[in-house]
């Protein structure tokens, strides 16, 4: 790894193994499904029909089966849930109408799995089918039946944003090109299938709820809402979580169902979904069609962009509005491009609902953009690096749509990967079937405005210091494998001048930790990191006072480094950590402090409708080069090597940053090469990890990671996000490498062997036709 050289006096900036890593690699970590114990087994009955009116659900036979403890249906919950308060249109179990195959219609809890299975079979379900739509085009047809009565044309949200003068911009260009790109729907395919363990505490009428969630706070809210409970009577626990990537960034139907069943049984219920059910719960990246027009001058300067984006969002709102807004907003902020027109359409269809997925909203549009830029560079005989350098921003600035950019490490990223890949020397000289491609990308460091706007701080961290001298950090930030707890430990330790090992991070239990919005939009490092530093500063102030009193000095002159307090400028007077803790606690006992983070108003985006989406405190920036070989007989692409540079502001934990960058590249590779969901009349054909193909380690190339540090003025220690920015650059860099290798331009993702081979055959035929015409 190519991290910046640093002196090792601080933990921030040194490679630190994750604080919860030992539990995971030794198998001691307990995930939600591990907590089932002797809980009743819950199962969901799912609609076999893609679209229809529920005529009858009869559960009497199921309820009468020995061993069945509870049966619930849509009738048991009349409260919809969802992401945006204005777009909550999903019920935990369908009421009246089903809108996709696999939608829950009822659920049972029984003494064991076999009984639960029998009970499901005993439920009588009668559905009168309605016409069902599996593509955005079918759903938008003028005579299509509406999935939701309040959404004409089955369009959940249309967005039309114009900044600058795109028409004038295109008119000024030396080259204008338009292309349409189709990107398949994909899923997160996180390792851990969904699960919830819910326990009703009879007598106290309380619910103790364990789930795989990335957003315990929102799940807590929605449970209270759907179960009509006082939130104070719910304790929400997030145990170890095996990955999220956005699949659990919203409350999911199975969570509410588990809560309903627990209450009905008056005991403990475990609802562990199969991989098929986890894939049906979905919330992945929607199938997206991007029609893009770009204008470019002969020197590579971009003059204007027009983008029309159509997303097939599935049957319910979920994050839909946010996704379609992100797609347009993040056309901005990467390059200096003043003239942008964006038309977005989020469309309902009779398929599992899409949602937020790593690189939320930007990936498919970025793929189209970078791919078209690459083709135009080729046409103008310009080096793709030259074109990017002709369009750089100069921070600080606000983009035309009001996004704040205070730090911008893209130029460095370009230099790094250009040099490391040997671009100048090697490109065009790799031999037949082999090529190099490059692309850039960026991502937000936390949404500046949360989806549920409450006015409360975005993040709060509390610190406790007790007689044992340990510092306990209490944070609601859900550690889901991304390293957030380690980041909190480092931030606290460094601010106090103590060992990371002295900080114990407690997260994910509403009984003890302050509320946090959750693990999404790459917000945690920026927001929770700042809150942690704030809390540690407050603790430091109290300790400095105690030390100053003992050392008879001014608190402002007290330093702490390496767990030793001293008076600045004097070598004699020193106190140990234990001495100062004892002194500090002597007056009022154990200390509790907190720190919080609120986003600055000016970071919250433009004033136009939907302007809050995409707004952030800072963007990460990435450039990458991909080397690939194409087997033209089989249409098979091999990714030989990847060089990637990411500007994450400052790498608080370079080890974790490196992992996140590799993971982003790898996930982008899955989308680029092979991942796609497919449905047969709404039934998932990809319903297992055998048919939903994520790359294996045998498919994974060496990835050379470069960390660039632009030191953001608002970030904790200067840090920005590191977990998403490099993803969206991979697919276009690969497409460019394929074009470089065999001269083939592809408009679809993934670049699966069948698509590549078909495109090659079509290209050969076209060439033959052209030749015949010439000969004639």
């Amino acid at each position: 790894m190519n991290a910046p050289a640093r002196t090792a006096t601080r933990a921030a900036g040194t490679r630190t193994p994750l604080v919860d890593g030992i539990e995971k690699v030794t198998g001691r970590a307990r995930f939600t499904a591990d907590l089932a114990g002797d809980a009743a087994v819950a199962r969901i009955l799912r609609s076999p029909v893609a679209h229809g009116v529920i005529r009858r659900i009869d559960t009497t036979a199921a309820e009468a089966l020995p061993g069945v403890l509870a049966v619930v249906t849509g009738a048991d919950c009349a409260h919809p849930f969802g992401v945006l308060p204005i777009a909550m249109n999903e019920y935990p179990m369908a009421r009246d109408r089903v809108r996709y195959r696999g939608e829950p219609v009822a659920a049972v809890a029984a003494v064991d799995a076999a009984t639960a299975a029998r009970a499901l079979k005993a439920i009588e379900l009668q559905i009168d089918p309605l016409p069902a739509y599996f593509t955005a085009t079918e759903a938008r047809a003028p005579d299509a039946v509406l999935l939701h009565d309040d959404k004409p044309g089955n369009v959940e949200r249309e967005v039309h944003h114009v900044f600058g003068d795109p028409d004038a911009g295109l008119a000024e260009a030396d080259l204008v090109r338009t292309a349409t790109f189709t990107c398949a729907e994909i899923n997160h395919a996180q390792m851990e299938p969904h699960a919830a363990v819910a326990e009703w505490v009879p007598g106290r009428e309380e619910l103790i709820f364990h789930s795989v969630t990335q957003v315990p706070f929102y799940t807590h809210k929605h449970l209270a809402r759907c179960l009509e409970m006082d939130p104070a009577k719910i304790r929400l626990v997030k145990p170890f979580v095996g990955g999220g990537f956005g699949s659990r960034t919203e409350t999911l139907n199975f969570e509410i169902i588990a809560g309903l069943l627990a209450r009905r049984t008056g005991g403990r219920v475990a609802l562990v979904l199969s991989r098929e059910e986890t894939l049906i719960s979905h919330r992945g990246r929607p199938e997206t069609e991007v029609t893009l027009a770009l204008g470019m001058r002969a020197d590579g300067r971009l003059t204007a962009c027009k983008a029309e984006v159509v997303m097939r969002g599935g049957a319910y709102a979920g994050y839909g509005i946010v996704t379609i807004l992100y797609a347009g907003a993040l056309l901005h902020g990467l390059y200096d491009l003043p003239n942008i027109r964006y038309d977005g359409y989020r469309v309902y269809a009779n398929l599992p609902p899409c949602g937020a997925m790593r690189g939320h909203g930007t990936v498919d549009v970025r793929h189209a953009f970078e791919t078209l830029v690459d083709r135009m560079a080729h046409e103008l005989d310009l080096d793709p690096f030259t074109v990017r350098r002709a369009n750089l921003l100069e921070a600080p600035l606000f983009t035309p749509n009001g996004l704040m950019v205070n730090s911008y490490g893209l130029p460095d990223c370009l230099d790094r990967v250009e040099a490391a890949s040997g671009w100048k020397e090697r490109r065009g000289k790799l031999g037949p079937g082999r090529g190099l491609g490059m692309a850039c990308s960026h991502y937000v460091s936390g949404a500046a405005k949360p989806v549920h706007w409450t006015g409360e701080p975005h993040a709060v961290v509390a610190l406790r210091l007790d007689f044992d001298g340990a510092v306990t950090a209490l944070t609601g930030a859900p550690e889901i494998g991304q390293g957030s707890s380690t980041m909190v430990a480092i931030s606290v330790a460094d601010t106090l001048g103590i060992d990371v090992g002295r900080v114990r991070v407690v997260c994910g239990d509403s009984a003890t930790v302050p509320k946090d919005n959750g693990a999404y939009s790459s917000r945690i490092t920026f927001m929770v990191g700042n809150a942690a530093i704030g809390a540690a500063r407050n603790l430091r102030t109290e300790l400095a006072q105690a030390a100053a009193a003992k050392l008879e000095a001014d608190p402002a002159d007290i330093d702490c480094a390496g767990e030793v307090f001293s008076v600045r400028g004097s070598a004699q007077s020193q106190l140990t950590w234990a001495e100062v803790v004892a002194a500090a606690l002597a007056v009022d006992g154990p200390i509790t402090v907190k720190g919080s983070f609120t986003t600055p108003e000016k970071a919250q985006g433009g004033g136009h409708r939907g302007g809050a989406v995409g707004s952030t405190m800072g963007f990460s920036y990435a450039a990458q080069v991909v080397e690939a070989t194409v087997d033209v007989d089989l249409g098979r692409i091999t990714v030989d090597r990847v060089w990637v540079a990411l500007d994450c502001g400052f790498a608080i934990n370079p080890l974790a940053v490196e992992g996140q960058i590799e993971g982003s590249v790898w996930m982008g590779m899955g989308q680029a090469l092979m991942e796609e969901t497919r449905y047969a009349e709404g039934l998932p054909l990809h319903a297992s990890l055998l048919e939903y193909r994520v790359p294996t380690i045998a498919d994974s190339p060496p990835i050379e990671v470069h960390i660039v540090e632009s030191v953001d003025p608002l970030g904790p220690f200067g840090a920005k996000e590191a977990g998403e920015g490099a993803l969206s650059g991979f697919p276009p860099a690969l497409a460019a490498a394929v074009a470089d290798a065999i001269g083939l331009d592809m408009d679809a993702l993934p670049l699966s062997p069948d698509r590549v081979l078909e495109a090659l055959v079509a290209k050969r035929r076209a060439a033959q036709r052209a030749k015949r015409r010439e000969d004639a």
Partner: protein
Amino acid sequence: MTEALADFTLHRPESLESLAILRRAVPEARLIAGGTDLLPNLRRGLVDAPALIDLTALPDFAEIEPLAQGALRLGAGLRLADLARAPELAGPRQAVAEAARGVAGPAHRNAATLGGNLCQDTRCLYYNQSDWWRAANGYCLKYRGDTCHVAPQGKRCRAAFASDLAAPLIALGAEVALAGPVGERRLPLADLYRDDGADHLALAPGEVLIAVHLPPFAGLSAYEKARQRRAIDFPIAGVGAALARVTGGWRLSLAVTGTDSRPVAIAGIDDALDLPLSDDMLARIDKAVQKQVTPMRSTMISSHYRRLAASALARRLAQRLAEQARDAR
């Protein structure tokens, strides 16, 4: 939709005699070796088996035995991981080891057996799904239903047989030894299969595959499979090839797996080929494969692609083996 395994009784006979007695006593019992094919199918409700008979304690079941004149006997219980590194399969018959290495993932290969690989069930997108899924789709011709969703007009199940090992073994002229109620019999491996995805094995009731016999072979062989990922994936199309000297030239044997309900031994290639293979001959090989395989829409990837991949692999393997033969001379 549940993926819970139903209860079953497990038997583990230690001789062919007790196996025979068990099969008479519990005719509805299913054989299990490594279980890597059977268990996922059991979980999905694709197999009704109140009892399972574990074959792994049978004597000599996992042995490799050199026979007279260079022939070879492979016990049906051999693990694929063992086949992959067997010195007996390092030379002329390396196609078998290559195929074994290409099956599933390392953990599967540690459990999976040769017999289970050759007797594995056929596969189809409309079949290898949960019970909820298949019920929602009205089941299918292969199991519980009456329509083939792949070829709705047809009366025959078009599920594909995707054993990697079958292709190189057929190319190398393998025979199988079967033990049944009336004793043991030998059969060319190619004849173990029928062109019917719902009934693809020509095993008689009560019969078990106990070994594979390979005839003497001094030529060259290779196996290659087309798949999207470098591990886990079944062959979209797999081709086994063997090239050996015969009077008057070279004999090329090709067999394709993954495209049809049975492995396809490619016919119509000249008995005595001249080396190097001419472009014309390569084109004929390509054509022959394209004509003889009949992939249907039973996989995520298009049937057209599977046909092209099979022929491309066959052409490439033929050329590669021909070049190796030339270099060896």
